């Protein structure tokens, strides 16, 4: 399936765009994280990388569906 991923902070700089079209055969958050690290090895060096689906932090076992709003969340540093 083709996913559209929003990117922020350092993930935006690694990817080079604010929205990334990402094609992969898997459909779980864990597979997405694994595939991202393969295609963007710099993401492996991050302290953490979470995925948010529809504005909530998503557990690894969550299934991604068409139309979901998906975002990459590198370590947060607000405040």
């Amino acid at each position: 399936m083709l996913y559209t991923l929003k990117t922020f902070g350092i993930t935006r700089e690694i990817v080079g765009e604010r929205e990334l079209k990402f094609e992969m055969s898997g459909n779980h958050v864990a597979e997405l994280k694994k595939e991202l690290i393969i295609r963007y090895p710099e993401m492996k060096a991050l302290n953490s990388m979470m995925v948010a689906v529809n504005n909530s932090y998503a557990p690894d076992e969550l299934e991604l569906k068409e139309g979901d709003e998906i975002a990459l969340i590198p370590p947060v540093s607000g405040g």
Partner: protein
Amino acid sequence: MISITDKPIDVQKVIEASNSLEAGAVNAFIGTVRNNAKRKRVVRLEYEAYNAMAIAEIQKVVDEACAKWSLLGWSIAHRVGILEPGEVAVVVAISTAHRKESFDACQFIIDNVKAKAPIWKKEVFEDGEEWVAAHP
């Protein structure tokens, strides 16, 4: 009220938005931009947020605080964009009947907003830049 804004935060307005006539305590935490980090001079900070999710996460933190303490009013503002040393980055204002719970609730909220809200800052030094907390 939760606001994420690229305009300077009016601290007084955030405090007023949290007030209640039943409150005997208003506690405000004001986070500002430091002019140094890692023994280097900070030229500016560049903040960005995933706005919709940041508001949702901050609301969850407030809901948790409301379950723990009797908040009579609250208001939170976070700045995004380019900030220079001395500028206000975040304000959390809480009003309660008595002072102790205003301190406790305010600390709980700022600690959890910092840990959970999808907001990022890049420190720009004279000789380089770095996304805060990105790498070990």
